[in-house]
């Protein structure tokens, strides 16, 4: 099967999956108790029945459920994700506002963890049984087992408050009004702590997987063939062992990539990072249906998209795969 067939097949399926997800999201949210009108009225402190009715009529919540569903689906078909009455802005604008910050954070975490994890795992495998291997294995076990928020808080205390190496919270220095390169550097400086914290868990996972996979491949027949050709250990290890050992890591990286949008709620909260995670959390508390649905949908679309991308990468990485669609 050629690439074009594969891609078109996967895209068609992806759209079907997204439709199903959109439906499911809609009903899931309605299943939770409370609605935006109640929250608003509660905050206003005057929850008489008339005000509730008014609010519901304004949000379109007085319509029959199926009508609401129809309006929702029709909007999504034209990429109109609805309007947040709470924030008085279209949902798409809200999401697009926050998306870059989240992608920056999770993307940085992704790259750091993948790079670091693969290198550490490969190193540990080459030195299997020696002290450097024990050190890497122990470290990855610790990071694998420690809760994320605890690492986040402790690293804030140590690196920011005690040592003053990096900023404590936030996306950039407020009021500094940097531009261009200076701003980029400032944001980068703020990015260090949250991205490393967020990436630690996956770093540990990649390192462990890469190590195990390297050791397994090292026993393969073709590695013996490579050595019999007179290749140096470094080339055997890189070109033959690592190249094959990385395949299962690619699968795992695909899983992590799917979480790029939705997986950083905790980190964003602890580090006051103005991303999608925070937007979603706030919307949840406020029962802001349209924003919640929008965030859910965008996250799902990212998961589906990255799954297709992972399969594509896998096809390139492993010529044996004729990825069945």
């Amino acid at each position, binding site marked *: 099967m050629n690439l074009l067939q594969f891609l078109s097949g996967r895209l068609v399926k992806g759209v079907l999956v997204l439709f199903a997800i959109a439906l499911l999201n809609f009903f899931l949210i309605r299943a939770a108790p409370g609605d935006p009108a109640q929250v608003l009225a509660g905050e206003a402190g005057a929850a008489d029945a008339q005000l509730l009715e008014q609010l519901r009529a304004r949000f379109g919540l007085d319509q029959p459920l199926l009508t609401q569903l129809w309006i929702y689906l029709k909007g999504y078909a034209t990429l109109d994700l609805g309007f947040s009455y709470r924030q008085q802005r279209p949902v798409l604008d809200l999401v697009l506002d926050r998306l870059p910050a989240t992608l920056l954070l999770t993307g940085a975490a992704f790259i750091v963890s993948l790079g670091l994890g693969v290198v550490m795992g490969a190193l540990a495998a080459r030195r299997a049984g020696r002290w450097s291997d024990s050190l890497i294995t122990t470290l990855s076990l610790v990071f694998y087992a420690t809760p994320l928020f605890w690492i986040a808080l402790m690293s804030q205390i140590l690196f920011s408050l005690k040592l003053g190496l990096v900023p404590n919270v936030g996306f950039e220095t407020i009021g500094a009004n940097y531009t261009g390169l200076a701003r980029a550097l400032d944001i980068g400086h703020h990015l260090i702590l949250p991205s490393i914290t967020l990436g630690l868990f996956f770093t540990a996972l990649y390192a462990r997987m890469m190590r195990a996979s390297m050791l397994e491949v090292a026993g393969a027949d073709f590695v013996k*063939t490579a050595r*019999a*050709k007179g290749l*140096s250990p470094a080339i055997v290890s890189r070109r033959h062992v690592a*190249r094959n050992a990385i395949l299962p890591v690619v699968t795992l990286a695909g899983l992590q990539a799917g979480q790029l949008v939705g997986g950083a709620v905790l980190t964003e909260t602890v580090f006051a990072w103005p991303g999608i995670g925070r937007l979603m959390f706030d919307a949840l508390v406020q029962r802001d249906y349209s924003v919640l649905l929008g965030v859910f949908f965008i996250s799902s679309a990212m998961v589906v998209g990255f799954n297709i991308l992972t399969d594509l990468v896998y096809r390139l990485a492993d010529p044996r795969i004729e990825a069945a669609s």
Partner: protein
Amino acid sequence: MADVSKAEPVLSIENLTLALPPLADRAHAVENVSLSIAPGETLCIVGESGSGKSMIAHAVMGLLPKAVKPKGGAIKLAGRDLLSLDEAAMQDVRGREIGMIFQEPMTSLNPVMRIEDQIFETFEAHGLLAKSERRARTLALLTEVGLPDPARLAKAYPHELSGGQRQRVMIAMALALEPKLLIADEPTTALDVTTQAQILKLLDNLRQKHGTAVLFITHDFGVVAEIADRIAVLQQGKLVEQGTADQVLSNPQHDYTKRLLAAVPSLIPPQRPAIVESKPVLSVTDLGKVYRKRSFFGAAREVKAADNVSFTLAKGETLGLVGESGSGKSTVGRCCLRLIEPDGGRIMLGDLVLSDLGKSALRQHRKRIQMIFQDPFASLNPRQTVGRIISDGPVAHGTSRKDALARAKELLELVGLSANAVDRYPHEFSGGQRQRVGIARALALEPDVLVADEAVSALDVSVQAQILTLIKEIQQRLGLAILFVTHDLRVAAQICDRIAVMQRGRIVETGPTAALFAAPQHAYTQALLAAVPGGARFGH
């Protein structure tokens, strides 16, 4: 065979001793072995599994497992002792002065690298040739080993090649730098007979053309007879006999060599008593099985593993289902038990239509047809005692555990093991003993029909001979009908009353063993018989 003069040997191994780790079942993998190979000569090291023959090859290559250490002696390549070289110097010897081919063509090539890059790397490793020359040389090599369309094949990945083609690539790679010595470690064991014959011929031609010395490791005396100039026989790490091919094969001196040679099954079928005419116990009519590879777009790829297969099997009779890999013989064997669901056709067990039974009825009646599997290591559950493995079947059919265990003890004695084996676990037994357990397990349900799927293929010749004798004895005693699935024509000649030859899912020829071997009718049968290694020497 090459004419070998008294030239300076390419390789001489002197009193080599390799130490095994302290807890191994013997102290030395190889003890006090001395061998030498002259330029252009093929030396075969023959031995059964565990004899240490592969260890010698790996020691010469400097690729011994970490746990095995050279303890004494010397390995001299053109006068230079390889054991005294450091890793960097050894690295330069590998590939440039010694090339090596391995047993498993399916796993010996890197699956994610193009063929040409894998050959290319050999030049690169030794800093030989300019880049453009390397490409040209790679193509020339692929052409020389007889691969079709080398330019296209060079760009292919290993999984796009057949086993035989991959082994040719391995040969091209091993010979890329024109080494003085080629080590071939069971290079044709994993191949079909017809492919094996081609590869052996290729190796012999290349050796003559380039004057390469060949160290050939094998367990198969048929192959030895085809290719060896001289033979060294290894038993338990000790060299028991060494001589020219003629001397060793026609006039073996050592008892062990004699026993090994006697165990090689002859291609001439022995006289077998006629089968008493009776109603068939198993009859298969128009059996069909198609494997489909589904795809989202376009047509599905279909492989007909069984295409209109029909045969019958009488009480006390052995029918051999013979063919190369992919011929569908194993599929047919498994379909008879409905371990694989056939797509069409009728399977009759006596008067019972097995192919029409529902799930629960099938469970009840399946005990009448049982299977012996190929791999004695994988087919027994390692966490169950032998007694449990054998008695589970009868217990599932309502016998009490106590009675079933008592019966298991009898069966173990029947297959030549002691009754106290019931309390032991499979890993405590050798491959041959496990296969005996597998036979006892199959017999526990008192079947009418046994399906033996390559039941002796994983065993050494001497063990193979014992198991074949055992199967024959049990058949005579119990009057079993046996469907014997095998790729090995020698084995088939010895045990089968009738043979059905399969090619691409079809039975192309069927007949009494003696008649079929004496005068094969179908072209494919003729090709198969011609390809059996050592046919001329081990005919009788």
